[in-house]
């Protein structure tokens, strides 16, 4: 006769292998000592086309200083301020990235340079659309690539409304699609409140009004909303203070990062978080070691460093991936700024990331090496990096193409993550098995 325990074990494993682990098993796995938790991807979109050449500076390329007489960052020099921070003798961090330098040195932060979209558009709108859809040059793609990750991923907690969360007022293109995803402008404000500002007793009434609205896609939105409100009330993630001395920068970006950490630690089933930080479109007075870009980078770097500190022993579960729609012209323009360009730099930060290295082949800045004679040429397709993170971190099996029209080729991966001897999701399944023994 089949014992209950054996039944649970068998069916549980079967469900795990189909990606349908019931929640009590998930909890058991998470509660188990040393038990692995589901992998989390934190995607950060730098909207406005960040100037990769002044973020990770190719100070070893002789053309760099020549083409950027007023906004160029001087090459590293010991003891001198306002210079790039050397990484490997060729590249250097912008001085505002100082908070990330120790993380890079510890080997948890990797950069990929000369990366971007093979589509040549220099329209912010189109390029963001292509990158979020994951289909350069194709606007008709119905859903975003992060939503497809949710669709294809083994849902660790199918019922959770928090599998995909954008810490933003509007659900970004990347998370739009059939899989449930939430836009949360602020966790604190994410509650149904009555006129006096306390929990509303109208919630059951609103719920039934929208439950019957099945023909209306607002109905689906509403069910997600009410479920999320209930879960948040129970888990109270915002009661968690930053840990390990983390100090987030003031402002929307810092707030979004702090709340990302809260969501991760509250075990609400978060798999993909999406954050955005704007203000990178420096056509005018971009500045060098100081100035506009330096200010944005300071907030960016302090925020990432704070998140990393705050996450503590959760770092092994998390990869932070930064992206921007394209880079900027190599040569500075007449307004001491830069115009829309082509390739740029992206970061991968994670406990299992093979960091401390700038990946990607450097195409060079000599005139004949530039794209259309003006922009950094592309040597890594952004989908190679995104696919690597999806496969080696999220553990996607690529059942359907994550990027329509793109053939998966692991040999094209930049290599920022170890080939999954045991991916996070496998470790997770192992932990479930262990908990059932």
């Amino acid at each position, binding site marked *: 006769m089949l014992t209950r325990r054996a039944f649970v074990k068998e069916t549980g494993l079967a469900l795990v292998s189909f990606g349908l682990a019931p929640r009590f098993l998930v909890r058991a796995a998470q509660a188990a000592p040393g038990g692995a938790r589901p992998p989390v991807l934190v995607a950060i979109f730098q909207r406005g086309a960040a100037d990769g050449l002044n973020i990770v500076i190719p100070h070893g390329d002789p053309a760099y200083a020549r083409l950027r007489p007023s906004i160029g960052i001087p090459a590293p020099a010991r003891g001198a301020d306002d210079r790039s921070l050397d990484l490997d003798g060729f590249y250097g961090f912008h001085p505002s990235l100082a908070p990330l330098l120790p993380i890079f040195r510890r080997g948890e932060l990797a950069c990929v340079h000369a990366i971007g979209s093979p589509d040549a558009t220099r329209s912010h709108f189109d390029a963001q659309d292509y990158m979020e859809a994951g289909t350069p040059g194709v606007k008709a793609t119905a859903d975003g690539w992060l939503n497809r990750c949710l669709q294809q991923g083994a849902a660790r907690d199918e019922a959770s409304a928090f599998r995909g969360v954008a810490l933003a007022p509007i659900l970004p293109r990347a998370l739009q699609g059939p899989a449930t995803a*939430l836009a949360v402008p602020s966790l604190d404000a994410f509650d149904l409140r009555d006129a006096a500002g306390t929990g509303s007793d109208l919630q059951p009434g609103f719920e039934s009004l929208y439950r019957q609205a099945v023909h209306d896609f607002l109905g689906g939105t509403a069910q997600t909303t009410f479920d999320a409100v209930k879960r948040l009330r129970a888990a109270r993630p915002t009661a968690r203070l930053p840990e390990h001395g983390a100090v987030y920068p003031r402002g929307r970006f810092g707030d979004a990062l702090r709340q990302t950490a809260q969501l991760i630690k509250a075990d609400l089933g978060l798999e993909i978080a999406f954050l955005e930080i704007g203000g990178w479109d420096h056509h005018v007075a971009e500045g060098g070691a100081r100035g506009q870009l330096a200010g944005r980078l300071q907030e960016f770097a302090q925020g990432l460093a704070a998140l990393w500190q705050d996450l503590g022993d959760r770092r092994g579960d998390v990869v932070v991936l930064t992206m921007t729609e394209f880079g900027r012209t190599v040569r500075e323009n007449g307004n001491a700024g830069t115009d829309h360009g082509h390739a740029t730099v992206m970061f991968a930060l994670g406990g299992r990331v093979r960091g401390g290295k700038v990946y990607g082949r450097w195409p060079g800045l000599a005139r004949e090496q530039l794209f259309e004679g003006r922009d950094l040429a592309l040597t890594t397709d952004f989908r190679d990096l995104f696919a690597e993170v999806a496969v080696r971190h999220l553990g996607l099996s690529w059942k359907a193409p994550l990027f329509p029209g793109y053939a998966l080729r692991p040999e094209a991966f930049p290599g920022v993550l170890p080939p999954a001897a045991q991916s996070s999701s496998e470790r997770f399944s192992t932990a479930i098995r262990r908990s059932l023994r």
Partner: protein
Amino acid sequence: MLATRRPLLLLVVLLAWGCAGRAPSPRPAAIPSPGSLPPAPRPAAPAVALPATSLSETQQALHVLNRLGYGPRPGDVDAVRQVGVAAWIDAQLHPERLDDGLAETRLAGLRVPTMTPRALMEAYPPPNLERRQGMEVRLEQSPQRMIGELQQARLLRAVESRRQLLEVMVDFWFNHVNVFAGKGSVRYYVPAYEREAIRPYALGRFRDLLGAVARHPAMLFYLDAWLSTAPDVRLGERRAGLNENYARELLELHTLGVDGGYTQADIIEVARAFTGWTIDHPRPGHPRSGGGYLFDARAHDRDAKTILGVRFPAGGGREEGERVLDIVARHPATARFIATKLARRFVADAPPPAVIERAAAVFQETDGDLRAVVGSIVRSPEFFGEAAYRAKVKTPLEFTASALRAVGADTDAGLAVQRTLLLMGQPLYGAQPPTGYADRAEAWASPGGLLARLNFAQALVASRLAGTAVAVGPLAGEGGAGAVADRLLERLLGGEVSDETRTVLREALAQPAVLRATLDDPVAAPDVAKIAALVLGCPEFQRR
């Protein structure tokens, strides 16, 4: 106040409709109650005929009030039915014939919308300039306060103006040629931008609008054109060389559309044609601060150019920019692009091709007469089709304004209302990218946005929004909870709800946890407010 103001307003509205096109004739100032309206006045000229439609008269009235405006106020549906849908559309297409004294009275206390950029720079100096000059910064002088007053004016007009279509068009065009008040000096130019470059042309000629926008310091600053010079000219640290920003967005967002058939080379040539278009001078504290458009010949690229296949000989000047605007304003791609966006605003997120084709043809035949283009859309069979009815999810602005109108709120449109728009992701004048805000359901039907709507609905009808007073009692009338609910559905949504919504609402009223208290005391204000909150929060009210 409520009891007397609404019927009076109704009368004024009816008078103006009756008088469209001729001098207002004096009428006895009798105050009819909505139940005893005078016979419908005959319009001066027969209204343009409307296509056959399967929508009921009430549905048609609701539809035009929701699409050509920010939704019905108490009594509006009946009023439109009285005057006739066709005549009402005609009147809205000629806002200059509609007296708007009442809305203007509400705006009278606001100074920012009428002030010049220079006066604004002096009244609301940037905090850093103040500090440099050793002056104390006072909160009521902060630039945020200035934008707050401007948001207030826009919201008040959306709620109070009788020229509803004009307000919708001002919102549409501002969004189409968006500038972001958070970028440098743009904030000081935004009031003048809306007042001088958008509002006068919102139902005018597209080329006039485009020109007024192109020459306006708000746009020149926002998209950096004021700094752009011929590649080899240096007029200062920042004014030294070409800047493509405005040229690109002119083609991609203002006129041809991203698939309009231009190249990167066209962008550069357009940017060269506009060199010399600058501002004298945009910096607060400058002797000529708050100045306007200036053509600076020293900055202009005098070499020959080829733009979209048209040759510009060497030696040109200021007129080259105007010539570029002539070319792109009359380009077939522009007619199509503008027709598509307008059809998306008025008909559906994915408008039927036929209505786009027709509107684009009208655009070309009339040389971009926007009144004619909009007219062709809002009188089309597609507009009055079943598929278009309530097909659009309201944007945060549309939801907020329509809720305030529906309950006849007396609002100052102040901070509390503005904050709601921020929470829903649509702060006015706060769209950073040149694309403006989205006009599609996906962008606005989010859980966070929905929560903000439900929370706003609850606060609004309980009169808990600072600066906004609502008297739900008179709307709800007397009787049991069921009767009150029916009456509120009738008055807030024209009775146009699904049977399911009606049933569920009645069931909700019976739930002890929700509204038991109302059954004993049906006129108790807080409980009526709860029913009203459920109505404003129901799926039907989220659509227009």
